[in-house]
């Protein structure tokens, strides 16, 4: 599903945010991406979405080489990737419902489909009460859950989540994680960047650890694993 070969990303003239990363992720895997703040997790995810192009190396997602991809094809790639953004990236002028519906409208789903699927997904993340609220009328955790709902409402084959439980209490986090787990069981590849040690340790999935932009550990059934 995902194949990164010798990928580096340098933002300024600084030290690279990612340096020579080699990662292969098979279809249907569930992978945690861990690492200190600023170690390059978000950069990793933004590369997979082709929000960024790598400075060097090749990235292949779903059989397509992102570095050679035509601009007009990018939206089609992104429709097959659900993404939970670290800063939510909700449309400020749309309500909860409309924000989630947007992901379906983009791929041309009928009104009927939208009207049944959106409330269903919002119920799954516990936002059935907040359907008509605008993002700035939602609490931090509620905004995060809207972002999560939007990411998987169109059942994409690949789900990327950047810190999806940073603003959620442990109980809600657990609910979200088991949701990801269920989604993963239907064949969706899931990649979660997280700091939630409890979660990683309890789920025992594959863990990729970054440190200063370099992969320092890639472990099946791993743990969060910083001894502090």
């Amino acid at each position, binding site marked *: 599903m995902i194949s990164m070969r010798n990928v580096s990303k340098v933002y300024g003239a600084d030290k690279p945010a990612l340096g020579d990363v080699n990662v292969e992720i098979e279809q249907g895997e569930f992978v945690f991406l861990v690492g200190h703040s600023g170690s390059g997790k978000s950069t990793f995810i933004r590369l997979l979405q082709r929000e960024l192009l790598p400075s060097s190396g090749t990235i292949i997602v779903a059989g397509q080489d992102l570095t050679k991809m035509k601009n007009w094809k990018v939206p089609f790639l992104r429709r097959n990737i659900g993404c939970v953004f670290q800063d939510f990236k909700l449309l400020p002028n749309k309500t909860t419902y409309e924000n989630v519906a*947007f992901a379906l409208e983009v791929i041309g789903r009928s009104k009927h489909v939208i009207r049944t699927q959106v409330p269903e997904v919002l119920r799954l993340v516990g936002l059935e009460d907040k359907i008509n609220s605008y993002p700035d009328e939602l609490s931090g955790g509620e905004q995060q859950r809207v972002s999560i709902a939007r990411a998987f409402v169109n059942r994409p084959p690949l789900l990327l989540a950047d810190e999806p439980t940073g603003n959620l209490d442990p109980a809600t986090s657990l609910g979200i994680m088991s949701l990801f787990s269920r989604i993963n069981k239907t064949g969706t590849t899931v990649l979660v960047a997280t700091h939630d040690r409890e979660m990683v340790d309890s789920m025992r999935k594959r863990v990729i650890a970054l440190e200063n932009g370099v992969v320092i550990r890639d472990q099946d059934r791993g743990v969060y694993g910083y001894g502090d």
Partner: protein
Amino acid sequence: MAINLGYFLKESVVSFRRNWVMSLGAVITIYLSLLLVGASVGSSMIVSQVVRSVEEKVSIRVFLKDGAAPADVDSLQAALVADARVKNVKYTSKEQALKDFGATMVESPELVDALEVNPLPASLDVDLKTPQDVNAVVAMIKANPTFLKVADRPDKPEKSLKYGQQIVNQLFAFTRVLRAVGAVFIIMLAIISLIFINNTIRLAIYARRKEIGIMRLVGASNWFIRTPFLLEGTLQSLLGALLALLTLGSIQWFVMPKVRETISFLPVTLSAGAAAQISAILILSGVVIGLGGSAFALRRYLKV
């Protein structure tokens, strides 16, 4: 991909309402810009009509000597009528000339009565199709051999032609400048309006660039993002153009009659046809500007 026009229409109307600060700004700008341009085009049409009516008074008078052979006069008249630039030629006899002169001297008619012989010559009065041709036609007449035969003072041909040389040249210089200034002003105004509108639309879209970025990240294709913005821009422009039309219409219906009353001696009317033309131009340019401006402003933020 099914183009869901309904979706886009709803989307742009909703966005218009939710971003009303920006939308209102754009509508006001477009309204006022088109109002300015429309009013200027209308005024310049009226002015150019007034100018033409003044220019039309330019004509050439050929003075004939007292004993000129009627056949020669007829042949000269025929030659003039045959010229493509000449509208018509009228013969004025000596007697008529004196009568006309007396009429202009209302304050001292004694002057005419005091004359013992009629010193005024007969003349041919030449009206032109295009007043600006006056110098060319004068040259043509001077070159005409019959003219020399019948001219009042063949020794000084230019004395036998009266066409208000100086006044005519001044008038044309003035109307030329007037037209040039008018054209420059309208073009300037049109360009400035375009810049204003483009500016406003650009600012409005700049303020929503984050939104556009998010849409792109969620997988919306460029046309999917663009369409509601374009529709919204067109909506704004149409609204602005409509408001401008309404304002100009009420000027035409309520203000112009008053002006016409005050200066009834000048033809300050705008025909219904011209008004319709201006309306069409306004609506059209409104749509083009709205669409074009939005499309142009969006380009920057639609690079994937």
